[in-house]
């Protein structure tokens, strides 16, 4: 084939890839717009949950710019989210008092707040990477959290600062009184933030972030200052975290000290890692799953934190690539019968997993009831069964279930392994 023909072929396939990607983005956008109008998502609470997920997704994406892309593990990323949120809420207050800006532009104030704090703290902390950076971020996080109580004029102390998202001089005809409208504003900004990050990763500096993560010494030899690359990455991550903070301010109309706190920093870390740090959409997946778990699980069980912690630990040991890593692993075998066989083996292996989990849930729930809620008595309704936690048979059942499930799992796991091997060998 001639060179021209090859070149033409290459550019044709490139266009089709880009077209495919653009189509995906458009489809996702349409899906997001339609989602809250579907039956089941029409309640205020469901829409509020979707909004929370979107905000968490933006925050997690910004965290992954630091962690997955630049290799900087931060235990204090909530600082930039929170400072952006505070900037945004002060801006909203100013708008309430007459500043002629539309409320939908408030996340811009958040972005500026996040960017400035990213620049200030980044200059101090990005000189080193690795564990030193992680520990500095921990220290900075604690300091800023303490400052939120010491400077009540700026941070409002424990009560925080509040504002109204409906009281503005400029009226764009889009009142933010209902949760549905807030959701649309948040989604619009979330898409902008995601596109911004996606574009940044494709710039030369963005590419160098990967290089600095993998081999900083070699990056220096290529001519880039590792520290400067980290600093730029930090500033951009701060900017996007600030946007998330601004959206948070609009959604809740109040920002308090926990916006910069250690728990929020820990949660975004868990979200991003569980979602998967290797792929762009991993953090989004993690944000959705964890937000849903945190919100809904506490309604079903008092031991929700234990379940979350165990889930997290299992993911780290058995699936370090995260949920998106797990899902994407199947891309390789996505053709024809191989995938079907693998999925079939999953179904078989799922049975002992469910049995073992049922046993674990029984044990945990009964122990929790006996230890922390004795006055509710020992009669409980678990997994559709009525049982008395004071008697022995539920305990025996639970232990057998757990042990039996694990034993069965040992027997069925080789099936999964064989199915995968066959699938990978297929032409």
């Amino acid at each position, binding site marked *: 084939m001639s060179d021209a023909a090859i070149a033409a072929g290459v550019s044709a396939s490139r266009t089709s890839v880009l077209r495919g990607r653009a189509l995906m983005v458009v489809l996702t956008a349409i899906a997001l717009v339609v989602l809250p109008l579907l039956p089941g998502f029409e309640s205020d609470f469901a829409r509020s949950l979707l909004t929370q997920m979107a905000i968490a997704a933006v925050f997690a994406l910004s965290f992954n710019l630091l962690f997955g892309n630049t290799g900087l*593990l931060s235990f204090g990323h909530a600082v930039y989210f929170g400072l952006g949120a505070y900037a945004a809420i002060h801006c909203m207050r100013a708008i309430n008092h007459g500043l002629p800006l539309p409320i939908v532009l408030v996340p811009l104030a958040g972005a500026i707040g996040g960017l400035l704090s990213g620049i200030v703290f980044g200059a*101090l*902390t990005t*000189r*080193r990477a*690795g*564990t*030193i950076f*992680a*520990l*500095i971020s*921990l*220290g*900075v996080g*604690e*300091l800023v959290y*303490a400052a939120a109580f*010491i*400077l*009540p*004029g*700026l941070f409002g102390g424990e009560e925080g600062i509040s504002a109204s998202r409906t009281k503005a001089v400029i009226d764009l005809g889009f009142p933010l009184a209902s949760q549905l409208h807030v959701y649309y504003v948040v989604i619009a900004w979330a898409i902008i933030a995601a596109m911004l990050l996606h574009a940044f990763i494709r710039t030369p500096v963005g590419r160098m972030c990967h290089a600095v993560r993998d081999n900083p010494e070699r990056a220096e030899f290529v001519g880039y200052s590792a520290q400067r690359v980290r600093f730029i990455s930090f500033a951009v991550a701060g900017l996007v975290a600030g946007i998330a903070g601004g959206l948070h301010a609009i959604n809740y109309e109040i920002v308090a000290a926990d916006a910069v706190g*250690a728990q929020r920093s*820990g949660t975004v*870390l*868990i979200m991003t*890692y569980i979602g998967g740090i290797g792929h762009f959409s991993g953090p989004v997946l993690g944000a959705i799953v964890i937000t849903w778990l945190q919100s809904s699980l506490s309604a079903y069980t008092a*031991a929700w*934190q*234990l379940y*979350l*912690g*165990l889930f*997290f*630990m299992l993911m*780290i*040991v058995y699936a*370090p690539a995260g949920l998106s890593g797990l899902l994407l692993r199947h891309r390789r075998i996505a053709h024809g019968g191989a995938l079907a066989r693998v999925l079939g083996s999953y179904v078989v292996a799922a049975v002992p997993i469910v049995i073992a989990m049922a046993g674990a849930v029984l044990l*945990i729930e009964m*122990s*929790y009831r006996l*230890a*922390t809620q004795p006055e509710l008595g020992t009669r409980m309704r678990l997994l559709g069964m009525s049982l008395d936690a004071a008697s022995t048979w539920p305990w025996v059942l639970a232990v057998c279930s757990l042990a039996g499930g694990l034993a069965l799992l040992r027997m069925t796991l080789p099936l999964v392994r064989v199915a995968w091997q066959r699938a990978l060998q297929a032409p």
Partner: protein
Amino acid sequence: MLELATVSLLNGIVYGLLLFMLSSGLTLIFSMMGVLNFAHASFFMLGAYFSYQLGRWIGFWPALVIAPVLCALVGAAIERYGLRRVHASGHVAEILFTFGLAYVIEELVTMAWGRNAVSNDVPTAIDFALFHVFGSTFPAYKGLMMAISVAMFGALYLGLKRTRIGLVIQAALTHPKMVSALGHDVPAMFVLVFAIGSGLAGLAGVIGGFMLLTQPTLAHSIGPIVFVVVVVGGLGSLSGAFIASLLIGLLQTFAVAIDYSLLDVMRSAGMVVTRASPMYELLAVKVATVAPVVPYLLLVLMLIVRPRGLLGTRDV
């Protein structure tokens, strides 16, 4: 003034020694395995709970010996069956594993002993005033704590420098890969070090449980400070950790005694500062109010200025 200074000195040393007991184990674990063990304070908490429960069954003195051993066993099991599988995934995965572990231990403790603080009262054998200083009493259990802490330092120091296994561990603190290449069973040493570290934290918890409240949030409240000690003291250095603990204990205690703020300094220098001046709130903050965050300030400064810590033998 002299009274306040003397009592603060004593309190600072007591608090510092408690911090050392808590962080000596983490220094070992962090220096040797590079694992930033977020669950270290959880072992401290387990030690407090174990000693409370054992104390009710068999009395305080046996509990003082058995509780740390239990913690060491739990630590060994976690390293052998859990953490070991995560080593291959890198330091970040290890940190996150211990992060999750801390959560889980807190919940398990709640499941076993409930949410409220248990009455982990000082046993009558050591519940008396050891001596008086300027009219304040110094309780005996604090004296016991000081003795145990210093003994811990002594034992660790001698153990590391005078025994064969100690020499190997010392080498592994600074050159872990070389030690492995020389044929020592590094994974087994990891289990040993993790177990010792957790046991030490448990021992600290037995006494610490009297000074602080024995409740599920105990680990969470004292955890972050331990990292500060280890980092400020420096990697690979036990003496560094000792000095850093005392430094932080004294710093925090004396800071509480200082009721001055930048505002007072400025005013005594003749500057006029009023409520309307910019940054008034920040300037008016008294040193005493920010005392509990002084360690974090020290952490950030140390990491920026001298990342290897006070007496560290290698970089973090």
